[in-house]
């Protein structure tokens, strides 16, 4: 866990830090930039896949789920005056920012959120072109992760004083293996920016992608057993800010499913072929890597003869 890097008091944020941060290039992972220990920016990625919520796989109704999540968001905002919450809805065909606690009237939070959520669902349905699909599609987790990370980057660059960001993923749909590459890319960039990704899995199956995400970024992965007590799970485990996590014990998963999916068919595989140039994974032997174009199995002699030709003037 990278929370240890965040425990600095306000005194240290003085002259020294200011000058350092001004000239730092934006690519290096930034650390210890918050202005108080427990101010947090919580990005919640809500899974609004209608096919999942209307199927038998959903263990509780969407309205109950939403009410518990809303109460949780309210309690987060109550913990500290400077806390911020941002909700992104993960739909079937699109993702969008649904709620931002830093804008809008403070006494109408829920109404704003619900209003926007409804509009989002309508828009998502319109985007649904090919509707002869009788399977539970996967929601666009990669899209909402990317949107969350973009927002967090903007917050990083907004100035010296900003809250510690973290991402909470409330997910129920299955993993779409076609999104493997994009999700892994977002996970690695979150790791680089030191943003933990917590996962709360509502569905019936574990999600390999989210397990990997939480493992790599140092977040918490939880699959609650009793979903009518979801609010209790949220406040006990996911409400903890990053500074407190250094001295709190949070549940750990027993094992992580590290299987990847291959780049050619998007199947989940255990053993496969890997391109040594770009590290793309394939399930069967190919002559050429489809990602970087390098040809496999070049004989050594052809390289040396071309070198010899170049030597002659």
């Amino acid at each position: 866990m990278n929370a240890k890097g965040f425990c600095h008091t306000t005194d240290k944020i003085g002259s020294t830090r200011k000058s350092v941060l001004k000239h730092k290039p934006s690519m290096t992972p930034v650390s210890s930039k918050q202005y108080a220990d427990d101010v947090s920016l919580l990005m919640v990625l809500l899974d609004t896949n209608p096919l999942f919520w209307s199927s038998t796989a959903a263990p509780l109704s969407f309205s109950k789920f939403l009410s518990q999540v809303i109460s949780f968001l309210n309690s987060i905002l109550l913990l500290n005056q400077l806390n911020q919450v941002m909700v992104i809805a993960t739909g079937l065909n699109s993702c969008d920012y649904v709620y931002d606690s830093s804008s809008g009237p403070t006494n109408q939070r829920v109404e704003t959120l619900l209003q926007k959520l409804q509009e989002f669902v309508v828009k998502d349905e319109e985007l649904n072109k090919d509707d002869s699909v009788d399977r539970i599609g996967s929601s666009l987790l990669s899209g909402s992760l990317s949107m969350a990370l973009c927002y967090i980057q903007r917050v990083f660059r907004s100035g010296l004083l900003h809250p510690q960001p973290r991402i909470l993923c409330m997910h129920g749909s299955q993993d779409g293996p076609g999104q493997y590459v994009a999700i892994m890319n977002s996970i690695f960039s979150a790791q680089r920016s030191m943003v933990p990704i917590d996962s709360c899995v509502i569905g019936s199956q574990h999600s390999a992608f989210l397990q990997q995400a939480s493992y790599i970024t140092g977040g918490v992965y939880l699959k609650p057993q009793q979903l009518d007590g979801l609010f209790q799970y949220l406040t006990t485990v996911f409400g903890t800010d990053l500074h407190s996590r250094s001295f709190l014990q949070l549940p750990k998963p027993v094992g992580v499913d590290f299987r990847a999916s291959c780049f050619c068919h998007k199947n989940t595989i255990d053993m496969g072929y890997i391109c040594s140039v770009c590290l793309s994974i394939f399930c069967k032997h190919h002559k050429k890597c489809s990602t970087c174009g390098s040809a496999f199995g070049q004989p050594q002699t052809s390289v040396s003869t071309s070198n010899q030709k170049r030597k002659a003037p």
Partner: protein
Amino acid sequence: MTDAQVVKRAKYKSSVKDPGVRGILKMTRERFVFMPNDPSSAMKLNVEFRLIKGHKSSKEGSNRPALLNLTPDQGNYIFEFENFSDRELCRDFVAKAVTFSGEVGGPTSEKAVPLKDEQLSSAEMERRIKLLQEDSELQKLHKQLVIGGVLSETEFWATRKKLLDVNASRKAKQRVGLKSEMIFNVKPSSDGQSNRVTFNLTPEMIHQIFAEKPAVQQAYLNFVPNKMTEKDFWTKYWRAQYLHSTKNIVAAAAEAAEDEELAVFLKQDAILASETRRKIRKVDPTLDMEADEGDDYTHIPGHGLASEDIKDELEAQYEPYKRSFLQDINRHAAVVLEGRTIDVETGDTRSVAEALASSKRVELAKEASDGNAHQERLDRVTRMAEIEDLQAPCDPPVAPLCIKDPRDYFDSQQVNALNQLPGTRQMKSVLSTSEAYGSLRAYISEIRTVGLSDPIVRPEVAFKVFNSLTQNISSSKYQLGKNPHESILDTLPSVTKEELLLHWTSIQELLKHFWSSYPITTSYLYTKVSRLRDAMSQIYPKLQEIKESVQSDSRHQVSLLVQPMLQALDAAFAHYELEQQKRSAKSGEKPNGYV
């Protein structure tokens, strides 16, 4: 040179004074055999090297006999060879065989039933010993299995051929480059008393001289051995060098006029000049030489350096004898950068000269046949120095734009992939998509009208959640530790950890040999399999011991670790039992002693 067997004519003597029995001495890695020429003689010998503790040999000398004395615990075997080189060969072989058999020990030579004679070269043995020294894990495994008598050497190394080959080939690929110092320009040693000057010549120097001065190499090929001996050739060469070092050009010209061959060394290198001219011709004509005219110092006499005395009054006849030190340095640098073009390191001068000459011929031939290069150059010239009004307008060279569709990268064949997902078949959505959207919208409006539920969560549910969470956290804390990246192996004491790892590697090795011996076709495989099975059944209780010795809270994790090893062993045992039953059934043994 040395190989797995050495066969030499020798005389066997029981003592030094003994005239000796003539015969043939044949040595293999494990034993030596002496067969006398006279078949009726009783002096046959067949002794294992295991019993030989040491060996002695007599001094070299023109009148002395070449003796080799092999000493077992008691007595000695003395062999007299025809010449000293034979004796050296046998002595080296004996030395290696004795050390090797000492290392291997007794049990292997008794138990192992080799399929054929071990044909090992001494280089191979050295490689093996080196590998064992480098890799301590391999050495432990080797000690346990081979010296413990479970596997024989051949079997052990048969699976590691790649390791041995890689080491050997890696050594062969790298070649030593040329020295960057000009070793042939070293000052000769002269003793102040007499008028003699001594030059030393090594093969390395010869190689350098031939590489840098092709005229000298050509002269060597022409003159030696027709016109003069090698010694004379080099004497003349050094004389020329000496004259140059004195910088006495007039004297050099005078001597050159007398001695034709000496003149070859004194004059400037004609071959080199022609090579340089050829290279200049190949330079791209569109290269702008005008641009660095100012930097060009090679045309200024003395290369731009202030020279002490500019002998402008020298006549034209002395021109060819002038040589500049800078030219020598440049030539030397060019040769060193090119690297070694031939592989002949040792060998006499003639072969070196011929090898260099032939490599040069090959290069020339390649260039001559490469007429394409000339055409390419002409094309390039016309392209760069285009005269537009004289030529037809040509289309600019374009390549068709090819941008891959990023959608291919991210979500190709998603339908196919999702059809294969195991979960999809079970959970077909009850509603169609539009209905699903509708229900979602209904849920949202429900909250808007009803509001959040009160209480959000019932107290008993909350209590249950708290309990389960606490239990979960406290139970996993001791098992997994704070860091999810830790592994159970690190929490064990190092002795246990190493034991476990050693068992793992030895089990893998044994199982490899076990499974490769099936199906059993020869009796050798049968004995091998039973040996392996005994070894494996010995490891089995050791694993159980380890499991019990660990502390109780990590016992579960350790047993999880050990589980696959036990499973593999069990599978092997089961297979063995099955095969045994089949064998006994096939051989017609009926139970209860029925006939």
